[in-house]
Protein backbone atom coordinates (compact mmCIF):
# COMPACT_ATOMS: atom_id res chain seq x y z
CA UNK A 1 0.00 0.00 0.00
CA UNK A 2 2.78 2.35 0.97
CA UNK A 3 4.59 1.44 -2.22
CA UNK A 4 1.46 2.06 -4.28
CA UNK A 5 1.01 5.45 -2.68
CA UNK A 6 4.66 6.32 -3.31
CA UNK A 7 4.29 5.38 -6.96
CA UNK A 8 1.21 7.57 -7.24
CA UNK A 9 2.94 10.56 -5.67
CA UNK A 10 6.06 10.20 -7.80
CA UNK A 11 4.23 9.95 -11.12
CA UNK A 12 1.77 12.67 -10.22
CA UNK A 13 4.58 15.22 -10.38
CA UNK A 14 6.22 14.14 -13.58
CA UNK A 15 5.74 16.59 -16.47
CA UNK A 16 3.98 15.21 -19.53
CA UNK A 17 7.14 15.72 -21.55
CA UNK A 18 8.69 12.76 -19.75
CA UNK A 19 5.74 10.39 -19.92
CA UNK A 20 7.18 8.13 -22.57
CA UNK A 21 10.54 7.61 -20.84
CA UNK A 22 8.66 7.22 -17.61
CA UNK A 23 6.48 4.51 -19.04
CA UNK A 24 9.47 2.64 -20.35
CA UNK A 25 11.30 3.39 -17.09
CA UNK A 26 8.59 1.86 -14.97
CA UNK A 27 8.47 -0.91 -17.53
CA UNK A 28 12.16 -1.45 -16.78
CA UNK A 29 11.54 -1.42 -13.03
CA UNK A 30 9.12 -4.32 -13.19
CA UNK A 31 11.89 -6.19 -14.96
CA UNK A 32 12.88 -6.95 -11.36
CA UNK A 33 10.61 -9.92 -11.94
CA UNK A 34 13.79 -11.59 -13.24
CA UNK A 35 14.88 -11.98 -9.62
CA UNK A 36 11.70 -13.88 -8.83
CA UNK A 37 12.38 -16.00 -11.88
CA UNK A 38 15.88 -16.76 -10.60
CA UNK A 39 14.52 -17.91 -7.25
CA UNK A 40 12.00 -20.12 -8.97
CA UNK A 41 14.59 -21.60 -11.34
CA UNK A 42 17.20 -22.23 -8.63
CA UNK A 43 14.57 -24.05 -6.62
CA UNK A 44 13.32 -26.12 -9.52
CA UNK A 45 13.37 -29.87 -8.99
CA UNK A 46 11.44 -31.21 -11.97
CA UNK A 47 11.84 -30.80 -15.72
CA UNK A 48 8.58 -28.84 -15.96
CA UNK A 49 9.72 -26.43 -13.29
CA UNK A 50 13.08 -26.05 -14.97
CA UNK A 51 11.53 -25.26 -18.34
CA UNK A 52 9.07 -22.74 -16.96
CA UNK A 53 11.71 -21.26 -14.68
CA UNK A 54 14.06 -20.88 -17.63
CA UNK A 55 11.33 -19.07 -19.54
CA UNK A 56 10.68 -16.82 -16.56
CA UNK A 57 14.32 -15.77 -16.31
CA UNK A 58 14.63 -15.39 -20.09
CA UNK A 59 11.57 -13.15 -20.35
CA UNK A 60 12.40 -11.22 -17.20
CA UNK A 61 15.97 -10.56 -18.32
CA UNK A 62 14.63 -9.37 -21.67
CA UNK A 63 12.22 -7.04 -19.92
CA UNK A 64 14.94 -5.58 -17.70
CA UNK A 65 17.70 -5.21 -20.30
CA UNK A 66 15.42 -3.96 -23.08
CA UNK A 67 13.64 -1.55 -20.76
CA UNK A 68 16.94 -0.14 -19.58
CA UNK A 69 18.38 0.19 -23.09
CA UNK A 70 15.46 2.14 -24.57
CA UNK A 71 14.91 4.32 -21.51
CA UNK A 72 18.54 5.29 -21.31
CA UNK A 73 18.61 6.07 -25.02
CA UNK A 74 15.57 8.29 -24.76
CA UNK A 75 16.68 10.16 -21.68
CA UNK A 76 20.10 10.92 -23.05
CA UNK A 77 18.46 12.81 -25.90
CA UNK A 78 16.85 15.41 -23.66
CA UNK A 79 19.00 18.49 -23.63
CA UNK A 80 18.55 22.09 -22.61
CA UNK A 81 19.24 24.72 -25.25
CA UNK A 82 22.23 25.89 -23.24
CA UNK A 83 24.57 23.03 -24.05
CA UNK A 84 24.60 22.24 -27.74
CA UNK A 85 25.88 18.74 -27.87
CA UNK A 86 26.22 17.46 -31.41
CA UNK A 87 27.26 13.94 -30.55
CA UNK A 88 23.71 12.69 -30.97
CA UNK A 89 22.13 13.46 -34.27
Amino acid at each position, binding site marked *: *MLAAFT*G*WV*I*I*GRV*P*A*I*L*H*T*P*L*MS*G*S*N*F*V*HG*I*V*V*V*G*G*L*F*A*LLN*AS*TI*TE*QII*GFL*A*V*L*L*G*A*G*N*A*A*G*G*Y*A*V*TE*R*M*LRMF*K*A*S*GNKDTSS*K
Partner: protein
Amino acid sequence: MLLNIPQIIIEASELVAAFLFLFGLKRMSSPVTASSGITVAGIGMLVAVLAAFLYIPEVSSSAQPHLAVNIALALIALGLGAGIAWWSGKKVAMTAMPEMVALYNGMGGGAAGAIAAVELFGHGDRGVIPLIVTVLGALIGAVSLSGSLIAWAKLSGIIKKTLRITGQQAFNALVMLITIVLGGYIVTVAHGGDALPQLSLHAAIALFFCFALFFGVLMTLPIGGADMPVVISIYNAFTGLAVGLEGYVLQNPALMVAGMVVGAAGLLLTLLMAKAMNRSVSNVLFSNFGATGDQKEGDIKGSLKPVEASDAGIAMRYASTVIIVPGYGLAVAQAQQKLFEFVKLLQAAGVQVRFAIHPVAGRMPGHMDVLLAEAGVPYDLIFQLEDINEDFASTDVALVIGANDVVNPAARTDKSSPIYGMPILNVDMAHQVYVVKRGEGKGYAGIVNTLFYADNCEMVYGDAQAVLVKMIEAVRSLAGAKH
Protein backbone atom coordinates in the same frame (compact mmCIF):
# COMPACT_ATOMS: atom_id res chain seq x y z
CA MET B 1 20.44 -21.81 11.99
CA LEU B 2 20.26 -18.83 14.22
CA LEU B 3 22.21 -16.32 12.22
CA ASN B 4 21.82 -16.81 8.51
CA ILE B 5 24.39 -14.58 6.88
CA PRO B 6 23.51 -15.08 3.16
CA GLN B 7 19.83 -14.60 3.97
CA ILE B 8 20.55 -11.30 5.68
CA ILE B 9 22.69 -10.11 2.78
CA ILE B 10 19.99 -11.07 0.27
CA GLU B 11 17.29 -9.24 2.15
CA ALA B 12 19.45 -6.20 2.75
CA SER B 13 20.43 -5.94 -0.90
CA GLU B 14 16.82 -6.32 -1.97
CA LEU B 15 15.81 -3.45 0.25
CA VAL B 16 18.66 -1.43 -1.18
CA ALA B 17 17.46 -2.30 -4.70
CA ALA B 18 13.90 -1.28 -3.87
CA PHE B 19 15.16 2.00 -2.49
CA LEU B 20 17.30 2.63 -5.57
CA PHE B 21 14.25 2.04 -7.80
CA LEU B 22 12.22 4.63 -5.93
CA PHE B 23 15.07 7.08 -5.93
CA GLY B 24 15.68 6.48 -9.64
CA LEU B 25 12.03 6.99 -10.55
CA LYS B 26 11.94 10.16 -8.51
CA ARG B 27 14.93 11.51 -10.39
CA MET B 28 13.15 10.72 -13.63
CA SER B 29 10.50 13.29 -12.75
CA SER B 30 12.60 16.15 -14.10
CA PRO B 31 14.35 16.34 -17.45
CA VAL B 32 17.48 17.67 -15.73
CA THR B 33 18.04 14.64 -13.51
CA ALA B 34 16.18 12.06 -15.58
CA SER B 35 19.08 10.34 -17.24
CA SER B 36 20.87 9.81 -13.94
CA GLY B 37 17.61 8.36 -12.59
CA ILE B 38 17.66 5.43 -14.95
CA THR B 39 21.30 4.78 -14.07
CA VAL B 40 20.42 4.64 -10.38
CA ALA B 41 17.56 2.25 -11.07
CA GLY B 42 19.89 0.17 -13.24
CA ILE B 43 22.35 -0.20 -10.37
CA GLY B 44 19.45 -1.31 -8.19
CA MET B 45 18.59 -3.98 -10.72
CA LEU B 46 22.19 -5.27 -10.83
CA VAL B 47 22.34 -5.44 -7.03
CA ALA B 48 19.10 -7.41 -6.88
CA VAL B 49 20.14 -9.87 -9.60
CA LEU B 50 23.56 -10.51 -8.06
CA ALA B 51 22.02 -10.95 -4.62
CA ALA B 52 19.69 -13.59 -6.03
CA PHE B 53 22.72 -15.79 -6.72
CA LEU B 54 23.67 -15.68 -3.03
CA TYR B 55 20.57 -17.74 -2.58
CA ILE B 56 22.32 -20.77 -4.08
CA PRO B 57 23.36 -22.42 -0.77
CA GLU B 58 19.80 -22.02 0.49
CA VAL B 59 17.84 -24.01 -2.08
CA SER B 60 15.43 -26.66 -0.90
CA SER B 61 16.74 -30.21 -0.52
CA SER B 62 14.65 -31.54 -3.42
CA ALA B 63 16.32 -29.04 -5.76
CA GLN B 64 19.82 -29.79 -4.47
CA PRO B 65 20.74 -32.47 -7.06
CA HIS B 66 19.65 -30.20 -9.95
CA LEU B 67 21.55 -27.19 -8.69
CA ALA B 68 24.40 -27.24 -11.22
CA VAL B 69 21.99 -27.57 -14.15
CA ASN B 70 19.75 -24.88 -12.71
CA ILE B 71 22.60 -22.41 -12.30
CA ALA B 72 23.73 -23.07 -15.86
CA LEU B 73 20.18 -22.61 -17.12
CA ALA B 74 19.85 -19.38 -15.14
CA LEU B 75 23.05 -17.95 -16.62
CA ILE B 76 22.07 -18.94 -20.16
CA ALA B 77 18.60 -17.44 -19.76
CA LEU B 78 19.99 -14.22 -18.31
CA GLY B 79 22.60 -13.83 -21.03
CA LEU B 80 20.28 -14.74 -23.87
CA GLY B 81 17.29 -12.66 -22.73
CA ALA B 82 19.34 -9.64 -21.77
CA GLY B 83 21.55 -9.87 -24.85
CA ILE B 84 18.76 -10.01 -27.40
CA ALA B 85 16.67 -7.34 -25.71
CA TRP B 86 19.66 -5.06 -25.25
CA TRP B 87 20.60 -5.36 -28.89
CA SER B 88 17.07 -4.73 -30.13
CA GLY B 89 16.60 -1.87 -27.68
CA LYS B 90 19.70 -0.09 -28.97
CA LYS B 91 18.72 -0.59 -32.57
CA VAL B 92 15.02 0.26 -32.62
CA ALA B 93 13.90 3.51 -34.25
CA MET B 94 12.43 6.12 -31.95
CA THR B 95 9.17 6.09 -33.88
CA ALA B 96 8.85 2.38 -33.13
CA MET B 97 9.23 2.97 -29.40
CA PRO B 98 5.61 2.24 -28.41
CA GLU B 99 5.62 -1.26 -29.84
CA MET B 100 9.02 -1.96 -28.30
CA VAL B 101 7.76 -0.94 -24.87
CA ALA B 102 4.71 -3.14 -25.44
CA LEU B 103 6.95 -6.07 -26.28
CA TYR B 104 9.22 -5.70 -23.23
CA ASN B 105 6.17 -5.23 -21.12
CA GLY B 106 4.67 -8.46 -22.40
CA MET B 107 7.91 -10.23 -21.51
CA GLY B 108 7.65 -8.97 -17.93
CA GLY B 109 4.05 -10.14 -17.72
CA GLY B 110 5.05 -13.50 -19.11
CA ALA B 111 7.83 -13.82 -16.55
CA ALA B 112 5.42 -13.08 -13.72
CA GLY B 113 3.00 -15.65 -15.11
CA ALA B 114 5.77 -18.23 -15.41
CA ILE B 115 6.86 -17.71 -11.80
CA ALA B 116 3.29 -18.27 -10.72
CA ALA B 117 3.22 -21.45 -12.79
CA VAL B 118 6.37 -22.75 -11.07
CA GLU B 119 4.87 -21.95 -7.69
CA LEU B 120 1.62 -23.70 -8.54
CA PHE B 121 3.28 -26.78 -10.05
CA GLY B 122 6.07 -27.12 -7.56
CA HIS B 123 4.73 -26.29 -4.17
CA GLY B 124 1.68 -27.66 -2.55
CA ASP B 125 -0.40 -25.99 0.04
CA ARG B 126 0.84 -22.66 1.28
CA GLY B 127 -2.42 -21.47 2.72
CA VAL B 128 -5.42 -20.05 0.95
CA ILE B 129 -4.33 -16.43 0.71
CA PRO B 130 -0.91 -17.04 -0.91
CA LEU B 131 -2.64 -19.45 -3.30
CA ILE B 132 -5.25 -16.89 -4.29
CA VAL B 133 -2.55 -14.25 -4.73
CA THR B 134 -0.49 -16.61 -6.88
CA VAL B 135 -3.45 -17.42 -9.11
CA LEU B 136 -4.37 -13.75 -9.38
CA GLY B 137 -0.80 -12.86 -10.32
CA ALA B 138 -0.80 -15.66 -12.88
CA LEU B 139 -4.03 -14.40 -14.41
CA ILE B 140 -2.90 -10.78 -14.66
CA GLY B 141 0.55 -11.74 -15.89
CA ALA B 142 -0.82 -14.01 -18.61
CA VAL B 143 -3.39 -11.45 -19.78
CA SER B 144 -0.64 -8.85 -19.85
CA LEU B 145 1.59 -11.15 -21.92
CA SER B 146 -0.87 -12.02 -24.65
CA GLY B 147 -2.48 -8.57 -24.61
CA SER B 148 0.87 -6.82 -24.98
CA LEU B 149 1.83 -9.13 -27.82
CA ILE B 150 -1.37 -8.25 -29.67
CA ALA B 151 -0.75 -4.56 -28.98
CA TRP B 152 2.78 -4.96 -30.31
CA ALA B 153 1.53 -6.72 -33.43
CA LYS B 154 -1.06 -4.01 -34.03
CA LEU B 155 1.36 -1.13 -33.54
CA SER B 156 4.00 -2.60 -35.79
CA GLY B 157 1.40 -3.26 -38.45
CA ILE B 158 1.46 -7.05 -38.38
CA ILE B 159 -2.22 -7.06 -37.51
CA LYS B 160 -4.00 -4.29 -39.35
CA LYS B 161 -7.62 -5.20 -39.03
CA THR B 162 -9.63 -4.38 -35.97
CA LEU B 163 -11.54 -7.52 -35.32
CA ARG B 164 -14.98 -7.13 -33.87
CA ILE B 165 -17.50 -9.90 -33.65
CA THR B 166 -21.08 -9.53 -32.56
CA GLY B 167 -21.60 -10.57 -28.98
CA GLN B 168 -17.94 -9.99 -28.32
CA GLN B 169 -18.50 -8.63 -24.85
CA ALA B 170 -20.64 -11.57 -23.79
CA PHE B 171 -18.05 -13.94 -25.22
CA ASN B 172 -15.22 -12.16 -23.42
CA ALA B 173 -17.14 -12.27 -20.18
CA LEU B 174 -17.71 -15.99 -20.65
CA VAL B 175 -13.98 -16.65 -21.20
CA MET B 176 -13.18 -14.54 -18.15
CA LEU B 177 -15.71 -16.45 -16.09
CA ILE B 178 -14.27 -19.83 -17.11
CA THR B 179 -10.79 -18.56 -16.22
CA ILE B 180 -11.92 -17.43 -12.78
CA VAL B 181 -13.75 -20.71 -12.13
CA LEU B 182 -10.59 -22.62 -13.10
CA GLY B 183 -8.56 -20.38 -10.78
CA GLY B 184 -10.95 -21.10 -7.94
CA TYR B 185 -10.75 -24.81 -8.69
CA ILE B 186 -6.94 -24.68 -8.55
CA VAL B 187 -6.99 -22.94 -5.18
CA THR B 188 -9.47 -25.47 -3.74
CA VAL B 189 -7.61 -28.54 -4.99
CA ALA B 190 -4.16 -27.26 -4.06
CA HIS B 191 -5.47 -26.47 -0.60
CA GLY B 192 -6.26 -30.09 -0.01
CA GLY B 193 -9.64 -30.41 -1.69
CA ASP B 194 -10.38 -33.43 -3.85
CA ALA B 195 -9.72 -33.08 -7.55
CA LEU B 196 -12.40 -34.20 -9.94
CA PRO B 197 -11.32 -37.40 -11.70
CA GLN B 198 -11.76 -35.72 -15.10
CA LEU B 199 -9.54 -32.79 -14.23
CA SER B 200 -6.22 -33.16 -12.45
CA LEU B 201 -4.59 -30.18 -10.79
CA HIS B 202 -1.90 -29.91 -13.44
CA ALA B 203 -4.39 -30.05 -16.28
CA ALA B 204 -6.43 -27.37 -14.56
CA ILE B 205 -3.37 -25.13 -14.25
CA ALA B 206 -2.51 -25.60 -17.92
CA LEU B 207 -6.11 -24.88 -18.96
CA PHE B 208 -6.20 -21.86 -16.69
CA PHE B 209 -3.18 -20.34 -18.43
CA CYS B 210 -4.63 -21.08 -21.87
CA PHE B 211 -7.86 -19.31 -21.03
CA ALA B 212 -6.06 -16.37 -19.40
CA LEU B 213 -3.87 -15.93 -22.48
CA PHE B 214 -6.91 -16.25 -24.73
CA PHE B 215 -8.69 -13.57 -22.74
CA GLY B 216 -5.78 -11.17 -23.21
CA VAL B 217 -6.02 -11.67 -26.97
CA LEU B 218 -9.78 -11.20 -27.01
CA MET B 219 -9.60 -8.10 -24.90
CA THR B 220 -7.03 -6.37 -27.09
CA LEU B 221 -8.15 -7.32 -30.59
CA PRO B 222 -11.20 -5.03 -30.81
CA ILE B 223 -9.31 -1.95 -29.63
CA GLY B 224 -8.42 0.50 -32.38
CA GLY B 225 -4.94 1.74 -33.17
CA ALA B 226 -5.50 5.22 -31.76
CA ASP B 227 -6.30 3.81 -28.33
CA MET B 228 -3.26 1.56 -28.20
CA PRO B 229 -1.19 3.92 -26.02
CA VAL B 230 -3.79 3.69 -23.29
CA VAL B 231 -3.85 -0.07 -23.65
CA ILE B 232 -0.08 -0.37 -23.34
CA SER B 233 -0.18 1.79 -20.26
CA ILE B 234 -2.84 -0.44 -18.74
CA TYR B 235 -0.81 -3.56 -19.43
CA ASN B 236 2.22 -1.84 -17.96
CA ALA B 237 0.24 -1.34 -14.76
CA PHE B 238 -1.02 -4.94 -15.00
CA THR B 239 2.47 -6.37 -15.24
CA GLY B 240 3.53 -4.25 -12.28
CA LEU B 241 0.61 -5.59 -10.31
CA ALA B 242 1.38 -9.19 -11.29
CA VAL B 243 5.01 -8.73 -10.29
CA GLY B 244 3.95 -7.24 -6.97
CA LEU B 245 1.61 -10.15 -6.29
CA GLU B 246 4.27 -12.74 -7.07
CA GLY B 247 6.65 -10.76 -4.86
CA TYR B 248 4.19 -11.19 -2.04
CA VAL B 249 4.05 -14.94 -2.64
CA LEU B 250 7.85 -15.21 -2.75
CA GLN B 251 8.15 -12.83 0.21
CA ASN B 252 10.56 -10.74 -1.79
CA PRO B 253 10.53 -7.06 -0.83
CA ALA B 254 12.17 -5.79 -4.03
CA LEU B 255 9.55 -7.46 -6.21
CA MET B 256 6.74 -6.31 -3.97
CA VAL B 257 7.79 -2.66 -3.83
CA ALA B 258 8.80 -2.37 -7.47
CA GLY B 259 5.65 -4.14 -8.65
CA MET B 260 3.31 -2.03 -6.57
CA VAL B 261 5.02 1.24 -7.51
CA VAL B 262 4.73 0.41 -11.20
CA GLY B 263 1.17 -0.78 -10.74
CA ALA B 264 0.12 2.48 -9.13
CA ALA B 265 2.19 4.63 -11.45
CA GLY B 266 0.86 2.83 -14.51
CA LEU B 267 -2.69 3.28 -13.35
CA LEU B 268 -2.21 7.00 -12.84
CA LEU B 269 -0.50 7.35 -16.21
CA THR B 270 -3.42 5.51 -17.83
CA LEU B 271 -5.94 7.85 -16.25
CA LEU B 272 -3.93 10.92 -17.31
CA MET B 273 -3.81 9.64 -20.85
CA ALA B 274 -7.45 8.75 -21.02
CA LYS B 275 -8.30 12.22 -19.75
CA ALA B 276 -6.16 13.84 -22.42
CA MET B 277 -8.08 11.87 -25.03
CA ASN B 278 -11.39 12.71 -23.43
CA ARG B 279 -12.29 9.06 -22.98
CA SER B 280 -12.83 7.05 -19.89
CA VAL B 281 -10.71 3.96 -19.47
CA SER B 282 -13.72 1.66 -19.59
CA ASN B 283 -14.81 3.45 -22.74
CA VAL B 284 -11.52 2.58 -24.41
CA LEU B 285 -11.68 -1.04 -23.32
CA PHE B 286 -15.29 -1.87 -23.90
CA SER B 287 -16.69 0.32 -26.62
CA ASN B 288 -16.03 0.86 -30.25
CA PHE B 289 -14.96 4.29 -31.33
CA GLY B 290 -15.81 6.02 -34.56
CA ALA B 291 -19.33 4.71 -34.96
CA THR B 292 -20.83 8.18 -34.59
CA GLY B 293 -18.89 10.09 -37.20
CA ASP B 294 -21.92 11.44 -39.07
CA GLN B 295 -21.43 15.13 -39.27
CA LYS B 296 -23.53 17.37 -41.42
CA GLU B 297 -21.21 18.66 -44.10
CA GLY B 298 -23.40 21.74 -44.46
CA ASP B 299 -22.25 22.98 -41.05
CA ILE B 300 -18.89 23.94 -42.41
CA LYS B 301 -18.40 27.48 -43.56
CA GLY B 302 -15.52 28.72 -45.63
CA SER B 303 -13.27 26.76 -47.93
CA LEU B 304 -9.88 25.11 -48.04
CA LYS B 305 -7.21 27.58 -49.12
CA PRO B 306 -4.03 26.02 -50.43
CA VAL B 307 -0.77 27.98 -50.21
CA GLU B 308 2.76 27.41 -51.50
CA ALA B 309 5.25 26.09 -48.96
CA SER B 310 7.77 28.80 -49.85
CA ASP B 311 5.22 31.58 -49.22
CA ALA B 312 4.32 30.10 -45.84
CA GLY B 313 8.01 29.82 -44.98
CA ILE B 314 8.68 33.45 -45.80
CA ALA B 315 5.63 34.58 -43.88
CA MET B 316 7.04 32.84 -40.81
CA ARG B 317 10.43 34.45 -41.39
CA TYR B 318 8.79 37.88 -40.97
CA ALA B 319 6.61 36.89 -38.04
CA SER B 320 7.80 37.68 -34.56
CA THR B 321 6.26 34.70 -32.77
CA VAL B 322 5.66 31.22 -34.16
CA ILE B 323 4.24 28.18 -32.40
CA ILE B 324 4.72 24.81 -34.03
CA VAL B 325 2.27 22.00 -33.37
CA PRO B 326 3.80 18.69 -34.45
CA GLY B 327 1.79 15.50 -34.78
CA TYR B 328 2.50 11.95 -35.68
CA GLY B 329 2.45 12.84 -39.38
CA LEU B 330 5.75 14.62 -38.80
CA ALA B 331 7.33 11.48 -37.42
CA VAL B 332 5.93 9.35 -40.25
CA ALA B 333 7.64 11.64 -42.74
CA GLN B 334 10.83 11.47 -40.62
CA ALA B 335 10.97 15.24 -40.86
CA GLN B 336 11.96 16.15 -37.28
CA GLN B 337 15.54 17.02 -38.27
CA LYS B 338 14.39 19.20 -41.15
CA LEU B 339 11.91 20.89 -38.87
CA PHE B 340 14.60 21.74 -36.36
CA GLU B 341 16.82 23.04 -39.16
CA PHE B 342 13.97 25.35 -40.20
CA VAL B 343 13.45 26.41 -36.59
CA LYS B 344 17.13 27.32 -36.24
CA LEU B 345 16.86 29.46 -39.38
CA LEU B 346 13.88 31.28 -37.94
CA GLN B 347 15.63 31.76 -34.63
CA ALA B 348 18.67 33.17 -36.39
CA ALA B 349 16.31 35.69 -37.99
CA GLY B 350 15.07 36.72 -34.57
CA VAL B 351 11.76 34.89 -34.58
CA GLN B 352 10.60 33.47 -31.27
CA VAL B 353 9.79 29.82 -31.95
CA ARG B 354 8.14 27.43 -29.56
CA PHE B 355 6.70 23.93 -29.79
CA ALA B 356 3.29 23.06 -28.44
CA ILE B 357 2.73 19.39 -27.69
CA HIS B 358 -0.67 17.88 -27.17
CA PRO B 359 -0.64 15.18 -24.48
CA VAL B 360 -1.50 12.48 -27.00
CA ALA B 361 0.65 13.68 -29.87
CA GLY B 362 2.58 10.79 -31.30
CA ARG B 363 1.59 7.30 -30.40
CA MET B 364 2.03 7.36 -26.68
CA PRO B 365 1.98 10.22 -24.20
CA GLY B 366 5.18 12.16 -24.44
CA HIS B 367 6.18 10.26 -27.57
CA MET B 368 6.42 13.49 -29.57
CA ASP B 369 8.71 14.99 -26.95
CA VAL B 370 11.06 12.06 -27.39
CA LEU B 371 10.98 12.33 -31.17
CA LEU B 372 11.79 16.05 -31.02
CA ALA B 373 14.54 15.39 -28.48
CA GLU B 374 16.02 12.86 -30.88
CA ALA B 375 16.23 15.57 -33.53
CA GLY B 376 18.11 17.74 -31.03
CA VAL B 377 15.33 20.17 -30.10
CA PRO B 378 16.12 21.47 -26.59
CA TYR B 379 13.39 20.58 -24.14
CA ASP B 380 12.99 24.14 -22.91
CA LEU B 381 11.49 25.10 -26.28
CA ILE B 382 8.80 22.46 -25.85
CA PHE B 383 5.61 23.40 -24.08
CA GLN B 384 2.67 21.33 -22.96
CA LEU B 385 -0.93 22.15 -23.78
CA GLU B 386 -1.86 23.82 -20.51
CA ASP B 387 1.30 25.95 -20.46
CA ILE B 388 1.00 27.42 -23.93
CA ASN B 389 -2.66 27.34 -24.90
CA GLU B 390 -3.37 30.90 -23.84
CA ASP B 391 -0.48 32.24 -25.89
CA PHE B 392 -1.99 31.28 -29.24
CA ALA B 393 -4.19 34.37 -29.27
CA SER B 394 -1.08 36.60 -29.18
CA THR B 395 0.89 34.54 -31.69
CA ASP B 396 1.50 35.58 -35.29
CA VAL B 397 1.74 32.17 -36.91
CA ALA B 398 0.78 28.69 -35.79
CA LEU B 399 2.31 25.92 -37.89
CA VAL B 400 0.50 22.59 -37.67
CA ILE B 401 2.46 19.65 -39.05
CA GLY B 402 0.86 16.26 -39.30
CA ALA B 403 -1.59 16.86 -36.49
CA ASN B 404 -5.33 16.92 -36.98
CA ASP B 405 -7.81 15.95 -34.28
CA VAL B 406 -5.84 17.66 -31.53
CA VAL B 407 -6.33 21.07 -33.18
CA ASN B 408 -9.94 20.64 -34.23
CA PRO B 409 -12.01 23.49 -32.77
CA ALA B 410 -15.08 21.26 -33.01
CA ALA B 411 -13.95 19.81 -29.70
CA ARG B 412 -14.73 23.20 -28.17
CA THR B 413 -17.81 24.21 -30.11
CA ASP B 414 -19.66 21.30 -31.65
CA LYS B 415 -21.58 19.31 -29.06
CA SER B 416 -22.48 16.61 -31.56
CA SER B 417 -18.85 15.91 -32.40
CA PRO B 418 -17.44 12.70 -30.96
CA ILE B 419 -14.39 14.57 -29.75
CA TYR B 420 -16.43 17.29 -28.04
CA GLY B 421 -14.85 18.18 -24.71
CA MET B 422 -11.42 16.86 -25.56
CA PRO B 423 -8.75 19.38 -24.62
CA ILE B 424 -7.29 20.79 -27.83
CA LEU B 425 -4.58 23.22 -28.78
CA ASN B 426 -6.27 26.51 -29.67
CA VAL B 427 -4.32 27.10 -32.87
CA ASP B 428 -7.39 28.64 -34.52
CA MET B 429 -6.87 31.68 -32.27
CA ALA B 430 -3.51 32.54 -33.79
CA HIS B 431 -3.49 35.35 -36.35
CA GLN B 432 -2.46 33.00 -39.14
CA VAL B 433 -2.49 29.22 -39.25
CA TYR B 434 -0.58 27.04 -41.70
CA VAL B 435 -1.44 23.37 -41.82
CA VAL B 436 1.02 20.99 -43.45
CA LYS B 437 -0.86 17.93 -44.56
CA ARG B 438 -0.49 15.19 -47.11
CA GLY B 439 -4.04 15.41 -48.39
CA GLU B 440 -7.56 16.30 -47.46
CA GLY B 441 -8.07 13.18 -45.40
CA LYS B 442 -9.43 13.04 -41.90
CA GLY B 443 -7.60 12.28 -38.68
CA TYR B 444 -7.73 9.19 -36.49
CA ALA B 445 -11.17 10.08 -35.22
CA GLY B 446 -12.52 10.36 -38.77
CA ILE B 447 -14.00 13.80 -38.24
CA VAL B 448 -13.96 16.82 -40.51
CA ASN B 449 -11.67 19.47 -39.07
CA THR B 450 -13.41 22.84 -39.08
CA LEU B 451 -10.07 24.55 -38.49
CA PHE B 452 -9.03 23.88 -42.09
CA TYR B 453 -11.99 25.89 -43.36
CA ALA B 454 -11.42 28.88 -41.09
CA ASP B 455 -10.59 32.27 -42.64
CA ASN B 456 -7.19 32.52 -40.98
CA CYS B 457 -6.11 29.04 -42.04
CA GLU B 458 -4.17 28.08 -45.15
CA MET B 459 -3.21 24.61 -46.24
CA VAL B 460 0.23 23.51 -47.36
CA TYR B 461 -0.25 20.18 -49.11
CA GLY B 462 2.58 17.72 -49.34
CA ASP B 463 4.87 15.41 -47.48
CA ALA B 464 6.17 17.12 -44.33
CA GLN B 465 9.77 16.49 -45.27
CA ALA B 466 9.41 17.96 -48.78
CA VAL B 467 7.44 20.95 -47.51
CA LEU B 468 10.07 21.78 -44.91
CA VAL B 469 12.85 21.55 -47.48
CA LYS B 470 10.98 24.10 -49.61
CA MET B 471 10.45 26.37 -46.60
CA ILE B 472 14.13 26.22 -45.71
CA GLU B 473 15.16 27.02 -49.28
CA ALA B 474 12.75 29.94 -49.44
CA VAL B 475 14.05 31.49 -46.22
CA ARG B 476 17.68 30.86 -47.22
CA SER B 477 17.30 32.48 -50.65
CA LEU B 478 15.66 35.44 -48.97
CA ALA B 479 18.67 35.87 -46.69
CA GLY B 480 21.00 35.39 -49.66
CA ALA B 481 19.24 38.11 -51.69
CA LYS B 482 19.68 40.58 -48.87
CA HIS B 483 23.40 40.18 -48.42
